[in-house]
């Protein structure tokens, strides 16, 4: 068998360069040479008895399937993007509606009502003494706060500042347990 015939049969790139050196890491030099020769000759035999190739019709069919898969994939990606955009738009619209409904200062007391109703319902069920004490303190501060708001005197802003400090302390105690 001549080399030019092999070039057509053995796939380009089947390389035996460095094979002996690689094998020498596992065996002595003469065994490495023999093993490399076995591998080279074996691959030459494979090249001399190449497998039958596919028909052109088969390759054309494969190409057709690939293009169809590619278009299907594009459609799926497009649909996914549309869906994502629709979800994002829905979130924006809902957020906008919520802001319009509850973001109005005239309706802000409704937000407070909703927010207040949650801890109240939770605390009603609680029998922890600390919670009771803290609740009393917060109620006390709330009444002072409303008093400060209605106060027309010049000390109003200082009172509110004191109350805020007190509220922060109570809040801190609450989280410390």
């Amino acid at each position, binding site marked *: 068998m001549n080399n030019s015939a092999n070039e057509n049969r053995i796939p380009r790139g089947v390389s035996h360069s460095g094979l002996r050196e690689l094998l020498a890491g596992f065996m002595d030099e003469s065994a490495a040479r023999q093993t490399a020769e076995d591998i080279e000759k074996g691959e030459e035999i494979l090249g001399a*008895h190449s497998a039958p190739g*596919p028909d052109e019709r088969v390759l054309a069919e494969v190409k057709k399937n*690939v293009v169809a898969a590619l278009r299907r994939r594009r459609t799926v990606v497009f649909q996914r993007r549309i869906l994502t955009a629709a979800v994002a738009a829905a979130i924006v619209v809902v957020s906008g509606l919520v802001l319009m409904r509850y973001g109005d200062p005239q309706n802000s007391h409704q937000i407070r009502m909703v927010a207040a109703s949650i801890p109240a319902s939770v605390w009603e069920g609680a029998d922890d003494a600390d919670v009771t004490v803290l609740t009393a303190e917060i109620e006390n501060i709330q009444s002072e706060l409303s008093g400060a708001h209605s106060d027309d005197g010049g000390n109003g802003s200082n009172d509110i500042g004191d109350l805020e400090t007190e509220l922060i302390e109570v809040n801190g105690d609450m989280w410390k347990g």
Partner: protein
Amino acid sequence: MAQRGIDRVITGCKKGDEACFTQLVDIYGRRCFGYFYRLTGNRDLSEELLSELFVKLVEKISTYRGGSFDGWIFTMASNIFHDHLRFKQRQTRLLDEHSKRIKSKSAGVAGGYDGDADKMQMALAELDSDVRELVMMRYYSQMSFREMAESRREPIGTVLSKVHRGLKRLRELMG
């Protein structure tokens, strides 16, 4: 085709270019078909597996992160072949034909011959399935032994030993 040309085709495939995908079929179609044919001995089955490989490639091309593309595509081909084997084993169990197949001459070949098996195909059927697959992968993928060892997560010495054993036996059978 030069490596730079192949790189350009792969880049085009990643962008979803149809022409690049058909070029990829031109570059690798025959080699992959040869690989499947030598493992299955069946032309129809090899055509099916070839089609499956390239359709899967459309889904997976974005996961290719450089390195030997030959190694990458033949690792995928090997996975498809193993999926086929698993499917076939399940099917065989269901049909209770396993014992018949073991007795047949083509027991070592996954698909069964399609009637016009050549001498090489008969010789390959004599090899252990694992050794046969390694010999075919090395030959058709053009991977180095080091790349094959990485791809199969086996020590390089084991891969060298199996390929050597397989090719030596093949020489004896074909001699």
